[in-house]
């Protein structure tokens, strides 16, 4: 392993990026599965902490104001704990305390908002967004970004604008992953928000697919412009085109060049033909985010989400199997046609080799 690190350093020196001796090895970032373990045990401990509060201080759950105050105090305590550097036990305690505190605040918000769910979900989303900004912990930021997006989607659902959320979350995620290395001081924060939004995107798209009938029933009679399912897919398509456009610019391709026009046109058509096979575009974009930064976690998430979306399409109840088969046939043939075009029409030497 030391050899590999030395090789990387030597290559960086060759390219004039670094000079002199290799610095001492710092504390490396933990792999994703260690972070999942951290999140799981934090969540489990939070449940027991809530159980403890419920059993020992029953009055906290009887008065939503008290629950809110205790929740805020717990989050403040967690903030102090999470500022202590590199102590695993304190980090776990901080995570668990914060999650339990958030649960108490949610209880208070829903109770105090007099069951006005739009206000409650919006307040909850704002709380989570604040935690993303201030909580000094990677796992906490991923969790809060995920929950903030889901809370915001619930608020939009209540406002009868259910389908625009995926496009908005995808735009947020694209801002993070396209600019991952642009602000070195904020890299960790950007990555955490990026992961949270990608997880939210996968979950939201999956829920829309599986719960399509429910949403469909609820909104089928609603002819408002903002309540139409196709609007969500159009926003996703627009964000996808924006992502491709940003990438073409980054790679120095002239916007009026043959390469850029063909690529943008192909992207637009891929989005258009896959409008019925929901999730395909989202999955492809996540895979592209992963490839852009050699990020295997995102690549894995993208592949798993694509397999999930294409399989769960079978259970979409508002279209016949014949209709689904036709949509998939069109998508399949079109994707292979685009591949054929890339092989036969766009010459390989047309591309800029470096970013």
């Amino acid at each position, binding site marked *: 392993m030391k050899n590999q*690190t030395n090789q990387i350093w030597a290559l960086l020196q060759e390219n004039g990026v670094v000079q002199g001796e290799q610095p001492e*090895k710092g504390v*490396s970032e933990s792999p994703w599965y260690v972070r999942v373990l951290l999140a799981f045990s934090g969540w489990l401990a939070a449940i*027991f902490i809530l159980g403890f509060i419920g059993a020992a201080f029953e009055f906290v759950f009887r008065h939503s104001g008290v629950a809110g105050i205790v929740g805020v105090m717990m989050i403040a305590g967690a903030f102090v704990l999470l500022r202590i550097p590199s102590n695993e*036990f304190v980090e776990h305690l901080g995570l668990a305390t914060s999650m339990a505190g958030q649960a108490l605040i949610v209880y208070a918000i829903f109770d105090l908002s007099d069951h006005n769910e739009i206000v409650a979900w919006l307040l909850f989303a704002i709380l989570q967004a604040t935690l993303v900004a201030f909580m000094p912990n990677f796992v906490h930021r991923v969790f809060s970004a995920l929950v903030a997006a889901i809370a915001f989607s619930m608020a939009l659902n209540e406002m009868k604008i259910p389908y625009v959320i995926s496009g908005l979350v995808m735009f947020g995620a694209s801002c993070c992953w396209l600019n991952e290395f642009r602000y070195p001081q904020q890299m960790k924060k950007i990555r955490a928000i990026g992961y949270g939004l990608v997880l939210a995107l996968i979950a939201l798209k999956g829920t829309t697919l599986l719960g399509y009938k429910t949403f469909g029933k609820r909104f089928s009679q609603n002819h408002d412009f903002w309540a139409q399912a196709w609007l969500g897919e159009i926003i996703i398509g627009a964000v996808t085109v924006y992502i491709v456009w940003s990438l073409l610019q980054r790679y120095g391709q002239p916007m009026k060049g043959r390469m850029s026009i063909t690529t943008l046109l192909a992207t637009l058509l891929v989005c258009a033909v896959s409008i019925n096979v929901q999730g395909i575009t989202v999955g492809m974009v996540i895979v592209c985010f992963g490839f852009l930064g050699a990020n295997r976690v995102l690549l894995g998430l993208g592949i798993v989400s694509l397999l999930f979306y294409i399989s769960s399409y079978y259970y979409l109840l508002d279209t016949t199997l014949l209709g689904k088969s036709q949509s998939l046939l069109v998508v399949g043939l079109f994707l*292979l046609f685009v591949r054929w075009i890339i092989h036969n029409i766009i010459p390989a030497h047309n591309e800029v080799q470096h970013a």
Partner: protein
Amino acid sequence: MSTPRRQLIEYIEQGTIPAEKIDTALSAMKVTPDGKSWRTFIDHLLLWLGCLALAFAVMFFIAYNWKDLGHFAKFGMVEGFIVLVIVAYCKLAEGTIASKVSLLVATISLGVLLALYGQTYQTGADPWQLFFNWALLMLPWAVIGRFPAIWIVWVALLNVSIILYYLTFRGIFGFAFGSESGMLWVAFLFNTLAFVAWQLLATTWHWLSERWAIRFLAIGSGGPLTWLVLFSIFDHREVGGSPGLAWLLWLVAMYYIYRKVKLDLFMLAGCCLSTIAVTVSFLGKHMLPHGGAGAFLFLAFIVIGMGGGAALWLKKVHQECLS
């Protein structure tokens, strides 16, 4: 375990790489792909998705309740598609992505053909037989394909047939293992066998050493066993055999292999997760009904202690591995 990406992130966060040279560093280490890599990637993505979409289109088309289409047309369509894909496989150069994708599409289409056969002739076969026969008939393609994804499909099909067999004949497994735990025992034993065999064969056939596939099998082995132990904690009368003993042996074996012989942090993290789940369930089952508030607090600290201890140990092993 340290990828160029991770290493670069570390250098950037340390401030070793100045902000104006980050783009050069990313390109030099190929963290940011060049035009050629993008072309290859898009080519593979379009090929995979296009072919999968076509295979699923055939599946949905056949699943549609056709009244105007005769048996001959339906069978002709699926068989024709399979022949077409296999001819494509034979024509394509061996070992290319396109040839592997063709074989995987043929494998999926074979399942469609078997389902169509069962549906048309009302063979009366149980659902588990469909998946079992599918796994059996695709075996030659898996052998010649030398492609981990096809083997994982094979393992998944056998898992599905085990579950469906159990749901149909729950009494048959009963004689050996008790009642509902039979399915979990068989799934655990089969997946463990597949996991061990895969690891051993990977030393000879390097195409088998795809890390994702090995991890997938490890989850297939550890998941049912952990579930069995949880099952035995919450309803011990329902569980036959000795899941606790098997679980302890499994943990010791995993620790020895993946800590001492061949370091793999993912496997160790999985073992930690399983240990936390089992320990907390055991303590919760015995303490919560009588312990009151104190029991909740104690369990919270146990989870924090175990989670923190596991993370600390895993990070230490990770640093050890990097240095």
